[in-house]
């Protein structure tokens, strides 16, 4: 689920004492100099050797240097610019069939060797309560390899001034077209991750991600009403070229109601539309509750996919490892074993992957040294697979991990996290305008809004940013106070049409939370504009004292 880390970040950013929330702040010139590979290898070997000597049957070491920069603005002011760095080493071992994990920020051979020995001691203590030993699917050591997010413009080398000016330009654009207030942010992430294991892998990865959310608020003081319109950007796994949007990156929404983006983003153009649309929302017609055909735009649908398919098909949840926090899953093993559980209608196909360029979940290798791959989760509407790590693969009769193990920091233990899980485009040629033509009574929903789903990923309620009434095949006017409720199986079985691959694009979550202690992860979900028939829409307007 998308947790509130984002809120914590923005709240911290708004404070007068600028305490970074990600780690150590660093000078710009030091950002682009990675740690020497031989230094990392020597540290890793110290841990691997100490663990083995202490009796571990397996050991992996993650040496991380996590760099972030975030910029927050409000109206015409830059509120905060923070560079952060966090470096350290996490050592995980298997001893007596149980896991042990210790992390340290002291990056010396002695310190990591001691961490490895402590991890073995913890594993032995845990083994007392173990009901069965951990079984790891085999992974072939890959020797010394490297992988990096493909990019053409390194965010670390773009002057801070240029970035701040871009955000302020966006804020001014929204204020000029109707917003009363405007806030915008820029999150930039670089994870330098070195993985080594007793399997014989030494993997060096350099991962880059970006996101620039904003909120335009329109206030009508006379009526006491206020409405917001958030940005329609999607976070991306790429470089700063993300902000060099060309005409080919701009997508006309159905009916031309707004501009959407694919592969690059024009924040100023989106902000300009947001100011106008936030103001229009103040007088939008309040929705009549009832059944509607919903036409869902990809930058909205991604979150529904994330919650109802992405999390539901995580094998650790299915098995009960998240029972105390993020919950279990309705997509139980018996449903998968039956080979006929209709998760969705015949046109619904979901693929999990770690390979799509530009996605948040794209990596060369996971945090167990497993290469990124692509596989089916739902095929022709039927549940056919899950997302598994090395210690889970045998449970679903597989001999290889899916490569779904990740940790959000050197100090966090790796566990099962979802890859990009995406709805495949329709096979028939269909544009968003053509999709809307067949809808008699419907609502076109764009952008991510509120979202909530039960602990087995079944009953859900979603809002959005923009809601347009569809009447007899035409988009007519903005609606307000819209949320839709359904359960996962009914919803995906109500999927009746989707646009073809020309309309396929990715949305994404930057701060997906799971686990105890809670960790965050970034992941993308692709789809084309998709239609769902007969979905229950509620009116969310309320009056308080």
């Amino acid at each position: 689920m998308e947790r509130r880390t984002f809120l914590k970040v923005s709240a911290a950013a708004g404070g007068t004492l600028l305490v970074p929330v990600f780690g150590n702040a660093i000078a710009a010139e030091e950002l682009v100099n990675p740690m020497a590979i031989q230094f990392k290898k020597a540290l890793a070997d110290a841990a691997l050797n100490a663990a083995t000597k202490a009796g571990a049957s397996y050991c992996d070491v993650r040496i991380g240097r996590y760099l972030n920069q975030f910029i927050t603005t409000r109206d015409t002011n830059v509120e905060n610019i923070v560079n952060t760095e966090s470096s350290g080493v996490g050592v995980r071992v298997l001893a007596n069939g149980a896991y042990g994990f210790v992390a340290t920020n002291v990056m010396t051979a002695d310190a990591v060797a001691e961490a490895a020995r402590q991890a073995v001691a913890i594993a032995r203590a845990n083994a007392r309560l173990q009901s069965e030993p951990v079984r790891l699917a085999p992974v072939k050591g890959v020797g010394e390899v490297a992988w990096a997010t493909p990019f053409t413009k390194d965010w670390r080398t773009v002057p801070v001034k240029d970035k701040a000016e871009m955000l302020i330009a966006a804020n001014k654009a929204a204020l000029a077209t109707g917003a009363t207030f405007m806030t915008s942010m820029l999150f930039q992430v670089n994870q330098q991750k070195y993985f080594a294991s007793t399997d014989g892998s030494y993997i060096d990865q350099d991962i880059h991600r970006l996101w620039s959310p904003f909120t335009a608020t329109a206030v009508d003081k006379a009526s006491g009403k206020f409405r917001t319109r958030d940005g329609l950007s999607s976070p991306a796994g790429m470089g700063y070229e993300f902000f060099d949007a060309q005409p080919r990156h701009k997508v006309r929404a159905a009916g031309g109601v707004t501009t959407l983006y694919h592969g690059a983003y024009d924040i100023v153009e989106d902000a300009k539309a947001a100011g106008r649309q936030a103001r229009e929302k103040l007088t939008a017609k309040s929705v009549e509750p009832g059944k509607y055909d919903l036409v869902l735009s990809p930058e909205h649908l991604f979150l529904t996919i994330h919650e109802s398919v992405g999390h539901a098909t995580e094998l650790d949840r299915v098995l009960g490892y998240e029972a105390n926090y993020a919950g279990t899953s309705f997509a139980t093993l018996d449903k998968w074993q039956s080979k006929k559980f209709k998760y969705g209608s015949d046109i619904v196909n979901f693929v999990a992957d770690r390979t799509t360029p530009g996605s948040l979940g794209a990596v060369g290798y996971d945090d167990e040294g497993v290469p990124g791959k692509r596989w089916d989760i739902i095929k022709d509407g039927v549940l056919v697979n899950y997302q598994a790590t090395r210690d889970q693969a045998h449970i679903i009769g597989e001999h290889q991990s899916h490569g779904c193990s990740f940790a959000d920091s050197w100090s966090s233990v790796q566990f099962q996290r979802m890859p990009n899980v995406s709805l495949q485009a329709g096979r028939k040629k269909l544009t968003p305008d053509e999709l809307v033509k067949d809808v008699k009574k419907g609502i076109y929903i764009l952008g991510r809004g509120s979202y909530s789903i039960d602990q087995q990923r079944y009953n859900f309620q979603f809002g959005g940013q923009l809601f347009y009434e569809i009447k007899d095949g035409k988009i007519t006017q903005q609606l307000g106070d819209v949320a839709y409720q359904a359960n996962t199986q009914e919803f995906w079985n109500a999927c009746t049409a989707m646009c073809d691959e020309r309309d396929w694009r990715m949305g994404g979550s930057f701060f997906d939370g799971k686990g105890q202690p809670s960790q965050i992860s970034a992941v993308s979900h692709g789809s084309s504009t998709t239609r769902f028939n007969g979905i229950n829409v509620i009116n969310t307007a309320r009056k308080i004292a």
Partner: protein
Amino acid sequence: MKKLNQEDTKRITDKVLSLSKADECTVTIDGGRTGNIRYARNAVSTAGLVENTSLAVSVAFGKQQGTAMINEFDDKSLEKAVRRAEDLARLAPENPEFMPTPSGAAFKASATFSDKTDAIDPEFRAQVAAYSIEACRKNKLVAAGFFTDESAFQAIANSRGVFGHQQRTSVDFTCTVRTEDGRGSGWVRRDASDVSKFDAREAADVAIEKALRSVEAKALEPGRYTVILEPAATADLLAYMFGAFDARSADEGRSFLARKGGGNRLGDKLFDEQVNVWADPWHPDVPVLPWDSQTMLPREKMDLIKGGKIAALQYSPFWAKKQGARAVGQPGNIVMAGGSKSTAELIANTKKGVLVTRTWYIRMVDPQSVLLTGLTRDGTFYIENGKIKHPIKNFRFNESPVTMLNNIDELGRPEILAGDETPLQLLIPAMRVRDFNFTSLSDAV
């Protein structure tokens, strides 16, 4: 590194402040260790120990600010941190809303540290897990839980004479117990600063009893019901609402506390008269640090809601200056007055109603009315004639805590809690509330 005492941190902060050439310099040192054990399927899945100490230096040249953090404490590293912060500040644009941190203030210490909590070791953690795992195995139930303990300190200082150093400890325990067939689920949460107030057996028994009682849940039609909300069921609802007690948002017309036509609703009666809420850093059950580390302002004991009226809004230093108000440290805890009755006694006084153990995945639907949605989870029961009659399926709700606090029938005994998604320490009562709005059923167990 070893946990730094007050003498250590004073020496370090004085050194850092002396190194800075900026108009203003502030320093924060955070350190400590966090241990945890996580279990599921009646076995330990992970256990960890993380130790870390960090130094944050924030400087300002006029209205230009910069911040740096490091994990090293030798003289060279301290100087490096100061130079980095100063470099960043020189690159940053001026912030017209910049406010200097406060001048020297005395902080009255709060009792946030417990020797017993500080002494927790891996054996203790394993034993906490073992209690619920062994009891569940005996009862053919399945336990999943998480116990974490922290022993930490924070020191703050600035170039205007502020200095504070204090240690704190905490434990947090949650446990979900499910029946083997997955038809029943119970949950418990316990939080404390002093681990001697935590009883792992008692906590596990609560989750076990709820799990056993929750099988064969019946469906009840969605609608408005009288509900008894255990403290954990309202923790995050209240935290969302208090998150909107910001004076600036209200004054600018973008919060539920904005007054139609302009201004805010300070002094307005928005809740039932039984609602009394305050913040108190020195409260013996939920003590928190006596300062707000973001602003370095002292926290104060202050009413937030008194007799149902809005008693205070929170002002940032900038907004306080602009509006002629006084800024104080943001609260770290929320205390809500209750009664003396246990949840069982509240149930005994209920003719028809729904008992809610826990709420889940709460999100803001409409900030104008603080309309929140979320679900019940891990133990939802139907009450008739003062007794729990049978378990019921979980509900989705769409409800505003403002409405909820207007519909209070009776309040129970307050309990110590940490919310799922709030940093606030809470001491809040169980509540019996009329007309709570359940909008759909959830089949999830």
